[in-house]
């Protein structure tokens, strides 16, 4: 409250204490930089803690931990392969569905929608992004899974049953449903970032193209997408990073089975769902260590994907297209 209005005497007092204030500033700067570096230390600390706890598992299983499909808590034999495949597969499915849809949504919001629709639609998409992931998971289990097992999966099996992906019992929960729920969850993320990328395309570029007689789609294809392609790639990778590490939306519907199958109907497991289900049940040191190593693998995968996303998003902001 006080300090808003300062009497002249006070100001003079402050001038006299200029040297003192230089110390004050140095201290202020030192405090703020130590907190800023604290974020870096936190990041490093996470990696070191996970690495250190993973050591028993790394020593015991070595590199084959990543390629072994064993997961046997009774015999203390662990491998990450099934969880890694499950993570990548559910993410790939989600991306296949979410990328075209979210590009469509972003285009609609940035360019095609009539002016009065832009704000409410934009807010709705952002609200979709704010819904906690556990609600998506629960909705997937109670609402989407029955629909999948009663209608979608039988239909797919009837029409595409000759493919190995659509065979087996229609249980509702499994890889396909997990991919769908994930897709729903990351769609708003990708859509809102992509919309912002599209909005950064200079108006005069678009107007020039419209002036030459381009249709809206041609402006989008030849001006907006080339101009924003790095930003769009960044948005896609951002969504992918989210999907890879998502726990609750997946754990409800993936089925939690240690099992590799060509069928997308079959239940599986992802790294995050394995951690969520088994971490508190780990009764031996090597079991816990293997789970932590799984977490480390997940952290490193998402680190790479999100790192690429940041680089592209930043470049997309700086130079635009090219």
């Amino acid at each position, binding site marked *: 409250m006080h300090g808003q209005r300062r009497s002249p005497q006070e100001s003079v007092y402050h001038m006299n204490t200029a040297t003192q204030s230089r110390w004050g500033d140095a201290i202020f700067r030192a405090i703020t930089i130590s907190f800023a570096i604290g974020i870096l230390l936190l990041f490093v600390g996470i990696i070191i803690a996970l690495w250190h706890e993973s050591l028993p598992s790394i020593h015991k299983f070595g590199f084959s931990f990543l390629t072994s499909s064993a997961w046997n808590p009774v015999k203390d034999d662990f491998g990450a392969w099934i969880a890694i495949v499950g993570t990548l597969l559910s993410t790939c499915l989600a991306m296949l569905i979410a990328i075209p849809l979210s590009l469509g949504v972003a285009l609609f919001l940035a360019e095609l929608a009539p002016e009065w629709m832009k704000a409410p639609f934009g807010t709705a998409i*952002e609200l979709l992004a704010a819904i906690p992931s556990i609600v998506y998971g*629960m909705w997937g289990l109670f609402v989407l899974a029955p629909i999948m097992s009663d209608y979608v999966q039988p239909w797919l099996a009837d029409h595409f049953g000759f493919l190995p992906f659509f065979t087996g019992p229609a249980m509702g929960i499994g890889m396909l449903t997990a991919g769908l729920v994930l897709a729903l969850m990351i769609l708003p993320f990708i859509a809102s970032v992509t919309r912002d990328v599209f909005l950064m395309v200079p108006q005069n570029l678009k107007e020039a193209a419209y002036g030459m007689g381009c249709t809206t789609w041609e402006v989008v294809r030849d001006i907006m997408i080339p101009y924003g392609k790095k930003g769009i790639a960044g948005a896609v990778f951002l969504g992918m990073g989210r999907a890879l590490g998502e726990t609750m939306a997946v754990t409800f519907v993936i089925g939690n089975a240690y099992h590799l199958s060509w069928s997308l109907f079959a239940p599986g497991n992802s790294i995050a769902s394995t951690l969520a289900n088994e971490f508190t049940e780990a009764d031996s040191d090597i079991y816990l260590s293997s789970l932590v190593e799984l977490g480390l693998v*997940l952290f490193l995968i998402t680190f790479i994907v999100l790192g690429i996303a940041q680089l592209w998003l930043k470049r997309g902001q700086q130079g635009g297209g090219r």
Partner: protein
Amino acid sequence: MMRMQRRMMINRIVLGLSGAAATLGLIMLTWILGDVALRGMAAINWDFFTELPTPPGNEDGGLANNIVGTLLMTLAATCMSVPFGVMAGTWLSEFGRDSKLGGIIRFFSDILVSAPSIVIGVFVYLVMVRPMGHFSGWAGAVALAIIMLPVVSRTTEEMLKLVPHELREAALALGSPYWKIMPQVIYRAAAAGMMTGIMLAVARVAGETAPLLFTAMNSPYWMEGMNEPMANLTVTLFNYAMSPYDDWQTKAWGAAFLITMAVLLTTIITRLILRKRS
């Protein structure tokens, strides 16, 4: 002429597809929110807010301790992450704007924003829960604080950057030192923006489950302090929804409704404030 018609046709098809995608998004939102609201409201009554959880098969009882637990942990996480994040954001905006270190910190905090929250839970388990020997509300709060921290620091930075440079120069010209200008001039000018950043971070962690699974765990009792396993809405929602009991599942929908409403209301209010200002 044929060519022109083809171009118009393709244009119309793409516009149609794009509009359909947006409509689909809106339908999904209504569908999910509708389900949560319909099934959730059926579970919510006075007892839901005032009673302790009951064993399955008992229609009475509520989630009072879970509601309090979630509020307490979110509050504690906010108290931990806000000073930390505001300080870090201050350095990024005021001193490290163009420096190499600033770029590195920005890069890693942006990754931390989207890092898998379950790994944060594992980290806190290793550095807090295991050394202490038990699950605790504090560990849950720390896990949530770690998730909030990069959000708070990055939004603080962005909001401080919006404060015009002339304001700093004017204050400096009066002879006041930087450490006095920050709280008395700059933070004030950016206060509303910083508040919205904090609110969005709170909304984000209020619905987090994964980082609490192995930190706060859960408890069916009233807490006597933060230093013990702590009931919270999201983990209870997870346990109840995965259980085979109808009445637990109903309560899970009630919890989902409560969390979703809280998060969405916070988000909407924050956006309204932001829009009003811009």
